[in-house]
């Protein structure tokens, strides 16, 4: 376990950071430009499937009804908004905002006096999110192209950092947590849903770029994540695996039962108030 924590950069098998980034950008550009979103035509996954999935991830019917079609791409693994307990007037930053679904839900919680910023490194995703912002008439939401390891966000300017099944995609997770810590105001909180590894993945999975891009091979252990968060400066770190998530993780791969290796977890922490 400690070895995992120490060698986080090499964690996702033998892919270089650049290879990993490329695989992720290509996959999500493809998803963003597919008409129906979700998993595209080959599997016949449509908006109804994405909504059905979202309900299993912990979104309420009312959440789904409140966001116009096209934002929920069915790519999450939990509901970070539910963790975040957002309040009116807060500033929220979503790491890897994708189609914008979690941003629009957060925008509803923080109201007109609050604001939500979505950062994503895939141009096609940001364009799609911006179109969705118009459909949702979401005036307090802004999207920008950026990398979660190099956030274009000022120090201490954010109340809450949320993220849904994205941090596992990063080849340098400690840097993601350091930068999230930097942008949070003192007392600000981190509320993330992500997959964590519960057993060593087979070597062929670890070195497969597609598998990294699909939120599988890049995932860390709970111990490694705890250490990264503590090193970044977070307190009250709590990582809670959600056993029930194994049922939908099992559906991510036709050939292999990934539920044996991965589980979705909520990852929370706080920047000390003083």
């Amino acid at each position, binding site marked *: 376990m400690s070895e995992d924590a120490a060698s986080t950069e090499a964690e996702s098998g033998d892919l270089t950071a650049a290879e990993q980034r490329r695989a992720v950008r290509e996959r999500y550009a493809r998803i963003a430009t597919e008409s129906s979103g979700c998993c595209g035509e080959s599997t016949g996954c449509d908006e109804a499937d994405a909504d059905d999935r979202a309900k299993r991830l912990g979104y309420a019917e009312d959440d789904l009804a409140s966001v116009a079609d096209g934002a929920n791409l069915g790519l999450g693994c939990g509901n970070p908004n539910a963790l975040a307990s957002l309040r009116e007037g807060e500033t929220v930053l979503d790491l890897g905002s994708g189609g914008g679904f979690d941003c629009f839900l957060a925008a509803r919680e923080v109201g007109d006096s609050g604001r939500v*910023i979505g950062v994503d490194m895939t*141009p096609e995703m940001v364009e799609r999110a911006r179109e969705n912002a118009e459909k949702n008439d979401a005036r307090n939401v802004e999207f*920008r192209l950026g*990398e979660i390891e190099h956030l*274009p*966000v*000022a120090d201490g300017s954010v109340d809450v950092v949320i993220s849904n099944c994205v941090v596992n995609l990063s080849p340098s997770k400690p840097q993601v947590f350091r930068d999230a810590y930097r942008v949070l105001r003192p007392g600000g909180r981190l509320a993330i849903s992500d997959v964590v590894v519960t057993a060593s993945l087979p070597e062929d999975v670890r070195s497969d770029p597609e598998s990294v891009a699909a939120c599988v091979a890049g995932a860390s252990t709970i111990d490694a994540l705890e250490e990264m968060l503590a090193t970044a400066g977070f307190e009250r770190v709590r990582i809670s695996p959600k056993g029930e998530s194994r049922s939908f993780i099992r559906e991510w791969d036709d050939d292999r039962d990934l539920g044996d290796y991965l589980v979705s977890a909520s990852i929370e922490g706080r920047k000390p108030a003083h």
Partner: protein
Amino acid sequence: MKESLMDIICCPMDKHDLELEVDDRNDEEVLAGTLVCTECGERYPIEDGIPNLLPPDMRD
């Protein structure tokens, strides 16, 4: 990009303030322009209302 967001964005590389140069705008937001880092001078384009604040080596 709404101008009200200028106070919370920064250069992704050195985290210094950015200066806004506007080429085109409507009532609500800046549609085209450039964000220039006041420290390193790096220029980040705004196209179709979307600021591209990716690190320079990741830009297409």
